[in-house]
């Protein structure tokens, strides 16, 4: 059944307040403040080393920020105990850069990981797996070893795993990694369809806005850990024509 659309009282999917992250004595993220309403899509882009993956990890609670706060759906991550964090993570889906599939489990076992602790029956699990396998065009790969798959196939499996439990927020780090432009466009169309049925918030990172600009309402452009643009994607192109630092961070995107 489709979930209700977010209302005015729905807490934002993501709130960053004065976020800093220091890595090995270097300021990797500095003074990031942002609010993303539930159901909207955020593109985080910037050149290599801008801090996109680091920010994704912080949002997912995999690392702790050096200063500032992160709140998901109104819940401040620093204040959550392990049980509350565990429950919150059930609302999240994640595709991480570098891969995170369990190497000693089949594709199907990897897909079913997020449903492991749910009381679903075997038939329901099979139905959920069948749905994401079809959506992500993974037919015939269910019993393969993830190590035997191509990078693009592994990314699709990760995306399928991130979607199988119908998360409220999907964090997809490195959208273009391993996927050719047509495959990526097809997946983004599929995610748009999912969003039309339920309030899926997406946070996606890429080096340039080329693939995602038409899908995301908001953009955060990072350069050396600092936000050089945070606002609607619709005005990003215009802003880039006026600001040299933004144009440099977007690497010639027009």
């Amino acid at each position, binding site marked *: 059944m489709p979930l209700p659309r977010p209302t005015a009282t729905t807490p934002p999917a993501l709130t960053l307040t004065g976020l800093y992250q220091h890595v090995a004595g270097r300021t990797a993220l500095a003074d990031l403040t942002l609010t993303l309403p539930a159901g909207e899509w955020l593109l985080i882009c910037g050149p290599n080393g801008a801090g996109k993956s680091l920010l994704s990890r912080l949002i*997912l609670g995999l690392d*702790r920020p050096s200063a500032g706060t992160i709140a998901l759906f109104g819940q401040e991550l620093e204040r959550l105990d392990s049980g509350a964090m565990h429950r919150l993570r059930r609302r999240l889906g*994640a595709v*991480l850069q570098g891969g995170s599939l369990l*190497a000693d489990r089949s594709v199907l076992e990897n897909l079913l*990981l997020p449903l*492991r602790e749910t009381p679903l029956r075997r038939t329901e699990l099979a139905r959920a797996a069948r749905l994401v396998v079809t959506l992500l065009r993974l037919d015939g790969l269910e019993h393969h070893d993830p190590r035997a798959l191509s990078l693009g196939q592994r990314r699709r499996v990760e995306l399928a795993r991130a979607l199988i439990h119908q998360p409220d927020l999907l964090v997809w780090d490195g959208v273009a990694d391993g996927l050719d432009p047509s495959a990526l466009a097809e997946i983004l169309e599929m995610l748009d369809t999912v969003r039309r049925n339920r309030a899926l918030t997406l946070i996606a990172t890429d080096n340039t806005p080329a693939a995602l600009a038409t899908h995301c309402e908001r953009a955060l452009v990072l350069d050396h850990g600092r936000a050089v643009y945070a606002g609607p994607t619709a005005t990003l192109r215009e802003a880039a024509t006026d600001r040299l630092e933004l144009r440099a961070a977007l690497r010639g995107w027009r």
Partner: protein
Amino acid sequence: MHYPDRPLTGPAGTLERLGLGALALADCLWLYLRILGGRARLDLPAFATALRQSGLSVLPALTLVSIALGLILGRQGELLLAGFALPDALLISLTYAIALEVIPVLIGILVAGRAGVALAVRQAGLAVSGELDGLLVNGIDPIRFTLAPTLLAMLLMSTAFAVWTLLVTGLTTGAWLWASVALSPARLVETLAHGIGPADLIGALIKPPLFALLVAPLACVNGIAAGRDPRGIARAATATMLGAIGLILVVDLLYLLLIG
């Protein structure tokens, strides 16, 4: 379970390691209770792997060592029996040493060396490969795939190995003494029964799983503390092997001093 994002060094790091080990063990025992209550499931593929690592792969080496130990004790017994006229006292002291000291420590070190190091490497490897992040973001505590199945396998196999090793060593020693000095099995059993009480045997059977209960969290924490650096995997393996041997000997000494 908390996964630190900085190196655990210095006195504070040692304290944090102890705390992490205690938490990991508590989480694991809670999970076992939930499994017994039907509210959680044991990861069977990981359990099968752990059984293979702490069981089948150790069995040939342990059997060989048990036979060698039995032959050594038999030969020494033969020589001493030929030189002194105190067979009963000699056999009692020999058996006491085997049953209560040598064999449990031997099992502890062999099982820790195989399963403990494998656990530390697996836990550290999860972080390096990104699998740890995959489990965490999916709301799954990684100890379900690492510590929980391995500790259970180590507990089961340590206990089974204690029985097996005592039998093999005892039979080998008995066979040697029977063949060399015609000490009959009935006489040997009578002497053993005279010298070893049920409490002594229980002590010898309890120690290997006790060692496993301490070595497994140590290995898990070493794996966690390795961080995301691939070199950390080797460090975790070495620290686990050395730490396990030290821990086993200290606990054995404490057991001897406190329980006797």
